């Protein structure tokens, strides 16, 4: 257990240092633009954790981010870089919008069925990229990005035609209340059961990766394709599980936004959560449980950034710049772990080259 704790500590060290360094850089930027960084960071902190409503904003921001983060981390454990979060998210969201409006089932069966269907929709989009990768050596980065365009636009078309709710803002009709993900309460506005779904998903992904033969096979594939073949792993199946599994988490994220946060899916719908998932996975060191932390950090920066803008008139873009700086520092893995020989976990950004080899 002690060994485990120190492993966690050393895995968290680099992201934590990166966070600190980027806050310092952010402070320098603020000084240049004539803002007192202490006031600004105080406002950032207040806006993210300072009150129940601030915490609520942070956690509701974090809910989809945790899941799109796992979508990247999970695939990366299998050696594949999932940039398809946005498409998988849209597939999940549009599935939730369709079933959420039309499905009429008793009790919790409604939202559970919708969530499962949305996860399957995301998984299908991801697995498609996996098949193309394994069978035809189509690079998953290119394929998942292209699938984003295809799936997002199909979703938009569906929302404007068969699923059109004839509401004032173009999009689907409101979902049936019994299919909604209920607010979590605790005086945290905006936080719904989707957060529980995200945490359960993180635990499930962890158990899958470290406690099942399939998970071991996936991780072996991620480290060495040769060793996976030697261990009797079917490369196509492994790629489908990696990207399909990842897609399922992104699909859940989309469903959570529709069923818990917005109640319907509009045209256009929230975008970029899939891409931000890459940052969440980086912060979480590609561990599903780490993605919970990563999601909360990015969720807090975004909530606090809004508050900074409100209080001090600092552009919300500054918060976005901060996030970008944090992520750049995290990718500089050797900057904070210079003397360490064995890395806690590799960065997905190095995997593009590695995954080309299969």
């Amino acid at each position, binding site marked *: 257990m002690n*060994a485990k704790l120190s492993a966690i500590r050393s895995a968290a060290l680099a992201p934590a240092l990166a966070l600190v360094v980027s806050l310092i850089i952010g402070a320098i930027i603020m000084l240049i633009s004539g803002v007192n960084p202490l006031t600004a960071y105080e406002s950032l902190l207040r806006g993210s954790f300072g009150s129940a409503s601030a915490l609520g904003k942070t956690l509701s921001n974090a809910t989809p981010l945790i899941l799109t983060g796992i979508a990247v981390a999970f695939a990366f454990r299998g050696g594949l870089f999932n940039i398809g979060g946005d498409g998988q998210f849209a597939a999940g969201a549009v599935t939730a919008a369709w079933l959420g409006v039309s499905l009429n089932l008793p009790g919790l069966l409604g939202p559970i069925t919708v969530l499962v269907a949305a996860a399957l929709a995301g998984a299908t989009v991801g697995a498609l990229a996996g098949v193309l990768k394994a069978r035809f050596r189509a690079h998953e980065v290119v394929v998942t990005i292209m699938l984003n365009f295809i799936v997002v636009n199909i979703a938009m078309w569906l929302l404007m035609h068969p699923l059109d709710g004839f509401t004032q803002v173009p999009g689907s009709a409101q979902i049936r209340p019994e299919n909604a993900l209920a607010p979590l309460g605790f005086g945290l506005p905006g936080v719904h059961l989707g957060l529980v779904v995200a945490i359960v998903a993180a635990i499930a992904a962890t*158990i899958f990766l*470290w*406690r*099942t*033969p399939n998970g*071991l*096979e996936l*991780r*072996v594939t991620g*480290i*060495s394709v*040769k*060793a996976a*073949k*030697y*261990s*009797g792993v079917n490369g196509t199946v492994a790629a489908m599980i990696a990207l399909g599994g990842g897609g399922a988490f992104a699909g859940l994220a989309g469903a959570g936004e529709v069923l818990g946060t917005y109640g319907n899916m509009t045209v256009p719908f929230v975008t970029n959560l899939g891409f931000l998932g890459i940052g969440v996975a980086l912060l979480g060191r590609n561990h599903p449980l780490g993605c919970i932390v990563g999601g909360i950090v990015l969720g807090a920066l975004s909530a606090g950034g809004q508050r900074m803008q409100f209080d001090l008139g600092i552009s919300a873009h500054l918060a976005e710049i901060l996030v970008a700086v944090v992520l750049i520092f995290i990718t500089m893995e050797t900057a904070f772990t210079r*003397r360490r*020989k*064995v890395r806690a976990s590799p960065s997905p950004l190095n995997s593009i080259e590695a995954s080309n080899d299969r």
Partner: protein
Amino acid sequence: MTNEKPLALRMTGITKSFGGTKANDGIDLAVRHGEILGLLGENGAGKSTLMNILYGLIQPDGGTIEVDGVELRMTSSSVALSHGIGMVHQHFMLIPAFTVIENIALGAEPSQHGVVDRAEARRAVVELSERFGLKVDPNALVSDLGVAARQRVEILRALYRGAKTLVLDEPTAVLSPQETDHLFAVLREMASAGMSLILISHKLNELIALTHRVTIIRDGKVVGTVETADTSPQELATLMVGRETSLVLDVVDHKRTAEPLLKVRGLTIDDPKLGVVDFDVYGGEIVGIAGVDGSGQSELLEAIVGLRRATSGTVSIAGRDVTKSSSRTRLELGLGYVPEDRTTEGLVGALSVRENSILRRQRRKSWRRWGLLAPSIILAHARALIATNDVRPPNPDLPVQALSGGNQQKLLIGRELADNPDIVIVSQPTRGVDIAASRDIQRRMLDARNDNRAVLIASLDLDEIKALSDRVLVLFRGEIVGEVARADATDETLGLLMTGEKA
């Protein structure tokens, strides 16, 4: 006598630490002009670190390097090159898609008004190759060349760049005996032309045959420099290991079983590297597959194990046709397999000993409780493997890449033998493994044979093939060109078969 010649190179007090361990601890080494110096040491003794320091790839913490009496700082390999230090690595650094000339001239192109002067490069290369007997077609693509020819290109490249002191890292590891003889003739020619050579090797007989002096290092320190004429393989081994080591393996005659356990009939795969192959392995015998690098050993073993699909022919295990079975089925039918690549195929370097201990059999129900992998069961299995195979350090949570090559191999072979398979297939059993661990591993294979299992090994190390095998099958261009019994397996016979000169 070489003794009277002045020093070409002198390294004094070279020290280098990585983390807490001293890879080089005050190493002194000197080579005279026209001398061939052997550098002997086990894996991890510090040979590579020392040579990388000489070649400017690593900066030492302390110590000096003098070339022809002038102290130099080797800040990069180009500095080393410009002072006449050349290196031929064990893994060739050639670009296969380029021609011989292009590879040799790359980075050192003679240019005329900024345009590469190919004619001049060719002239220089041809002259060097004739002078030292390094025969090679300058226009051939490197990808079309055999291993021995690629090595000649590497040597030519170093010479072309003006190397006067040449370091060769395990140059004979991939060569047939005749190719080794030829290489040695070339190296002697280079030495008599006044060049200095440093030969890194762990093959004691070769060091005795070729060198003038041998410097032995152990645990980062020089433990002795001996005149080759006054030493013996036994003395070198004792210096290298630090205690008396038996160089001979006791092999007691053993009667093989009546029926073969492994039958290979007319096997072909979708790869021209392997031809049509027929052979049997009986219980209670070790069959060795010899051949130069690239003659199809790996492909053959992978086809038998089920990692490559047969396009025709059959493979049977104990009378059962497994040609269509997956590698996992073959494993469960009693086929243990140790691939040549330890850390990226047989084991996963980044994963713990514990997780590696169930690899390839990860789907067995016996590791699970409540449907999930049970850490306690796996831990017990890992501990048992560590204990029975003397894996050090005995820590199941260490990543496999933190173990030495010898301990990795003991773990890997132990895991594959733990199921008591009828057939054990081992590729390169002791490559990169120190002497003591090699002996342990070879004994385990003899035990398996004495236990009436069928043992099939493939090795590029002929000494190992000869020491272990009851029968040797020689592969040449994917075909079995000869079968030699233990008593007749000499370097001469095997070498001629390996290079296709006698069929």
